């Protein structure tokens, strides 16, 4: 990134002159990302909707990307800027790995992402914020870890689960009731899809599983073996099971009262 800054600064997001904005400015926004850790790793999932004001800009946008072999990043916020940020982040991790011959530590990757979000602060102040979730397998500590961010680049490690984006309030509420520390990989995946379902239930900007168009949330898992994206068949199975369950209990599984 430093090299890019010196060599062709126009390619870096932070170095562009900011347009003067008058009134409301609309660009596609992505919405909800959810992450949950389990003993063997961490799952990161996102819905598929992008909205522009009241309009659904895209039904099948992808908002969760592999950052490198052992980490993934999910983005909420202005889609165009976010995708570019992820591209640059991926590039940077790969570049570091090739030049140094070793991967950055997970902590290092998380810090790097923090700096990049801070670089976007000017845009964020004008309403074009990018707020990612970062999850990865810490090779040194042998466990999955989740990092969440705020618009100013503030970074905090989350234990267990977290969510970001407009539907995050509902998703976090749902996960709070569903989350167990001893989840298996598949249980964790089911829990995050449940949470996305609840977010879509109450947040207009979050899209639920679209069984008719066969558009399902993107679910990824990072374990000791690296990054893996659930196939469409796997996610559709989870989504259908949840759908079946909700035909009986529209609000999803009930937690115990005491």
């Amino acid at each position, binding site marked *: 990134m430093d090299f890019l800054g010196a060599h062709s600064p126009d390619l870096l997001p932070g170095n562009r002159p900011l347009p003067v904005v008058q009134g409301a400015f609309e660009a596609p926004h992505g919405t909800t990302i959810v992450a949950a850790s389990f003993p063997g790793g961490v799952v990161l999932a996102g819905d598929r909707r992008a909205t522009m004001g009241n309009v659904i800009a895209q039904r099948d946008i992808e908002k969760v990307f592999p950052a490198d072999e052992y980490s993934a990043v999910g983005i909420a916020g202005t889609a165009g800027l976010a995708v570019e940020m992820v591209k640059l982040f991926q590039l940077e991790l790969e570049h570091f790995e*090739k030049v140094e011959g070793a991967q950055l530590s997970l902590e290092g990757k998380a810090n790097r992402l923090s700096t990049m979000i801070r670089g976007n602060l000017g845009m964020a102040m004008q309403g074009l914020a990018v707020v990612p979730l970062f999850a990865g397998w810490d090779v040194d500590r042998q466990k999955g870890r989740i990092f969440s961010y705020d618009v100013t680049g503030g970074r905090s490690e989350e234990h267990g689960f977290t969510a970001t984006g407009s539907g995050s309030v509902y998703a976090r509420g749902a996960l709070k009731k569903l989350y167990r520390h001893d989840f298996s990989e598949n249980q964790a995946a089911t829990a995050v899809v449940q949470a996305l379902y609840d977010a879509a239930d109450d947040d207009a900007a979050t899209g639920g599983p679209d069984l008719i168009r066969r558009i399902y949330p993107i679910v990824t898992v990072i374990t000791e073996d690296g990054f893996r994206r659930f196939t469409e068949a796997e996610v559709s199975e989870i989504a259908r099971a949840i759908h079946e369950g909700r035909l009986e209990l529209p609000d999803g599984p009930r937690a115990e009262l005491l």
Partner: protein
Amino acid sequence: MSTPFYVSPQQAMADRAEYARKGIARGRSVVVLQYTDGVVFVAENPSRALHKVSEIYDRIAFAAVGKYNEFENLRIGGVRYADLRGYTYDREDVTARGLANVYAQTLGTIFSSAAEKPYEVELIVAEVGNAAEDDQIYRLPHDGSIVDEHGSVAVGGNADQISNYLDQRHRDGMTLGEALRLAVDSLSRDNNGGERTLTAEHLEVATLDRTRPQQRKFKRILGRQLSRLLEENAPAGGAKPVADAGAEEASDAGGSAGPSGKGAKDNGAKDNGAKDNGTKGNGAKGNGVARKGGSGASGADSPEESGGSSDAKD
């Protein structure tokens, strides 16, 4: 007061080339071979930290011999070039040809600039395609020229002898194990005809494997996996169905012609044979002479080549 001597440009260039060649020849060699699923890089390199072979991009890798600081510089330049290209346009737009051109420009400029000493390096840039025909291997000597290679290449000290050895034995469609064995055999031959044993600790091996599901096809073969591959294909194991028919003929013919005589090791005769040939094959010098023909022919595919050498018998 000293008066500057006039040195003719020819002489100056010849001196520089000589200087660079000597520097390169001091180092150990690297060989690059095509096999069924891609391209394998084998280097003799006792160091775990200083790599001679490394990844440049998704389908492109780099191997070098010579001065470490010089080729490391070029490697980082190459990674930057590739990453910047891929970020600006698309990952598909990064090609070995483009990279080789950049290297050629850099090396050529440095070689002919009177202010700098020429780089004592020789590079290989390889790209793996979707099929074996699409693989590309470029060799870049110290002076900035580009040589488009097929099948097998060797650079470094002793490169001529090794490429002769490889040219005669390499064929299309080898498995990774076979190709690796061939590469190790070629590297373990000394230029004075002796043999050394190279074990996994002395080797740096990496592949560009087109069957890898990941986008990045480069993979180092390390530790246990390497020892296993070497053992499975060890000559003593006997399970070596290399198309020896051609090679055998060649070795028969080769008694007089140094390079092919030396190569008989892989054939039935095994160890003893190898030693015999080692002494007989003092034609290492003969190699030097045979080099021109050898490297000229190195462009051709290997089967034709073994055919070529058996023709030589007639």
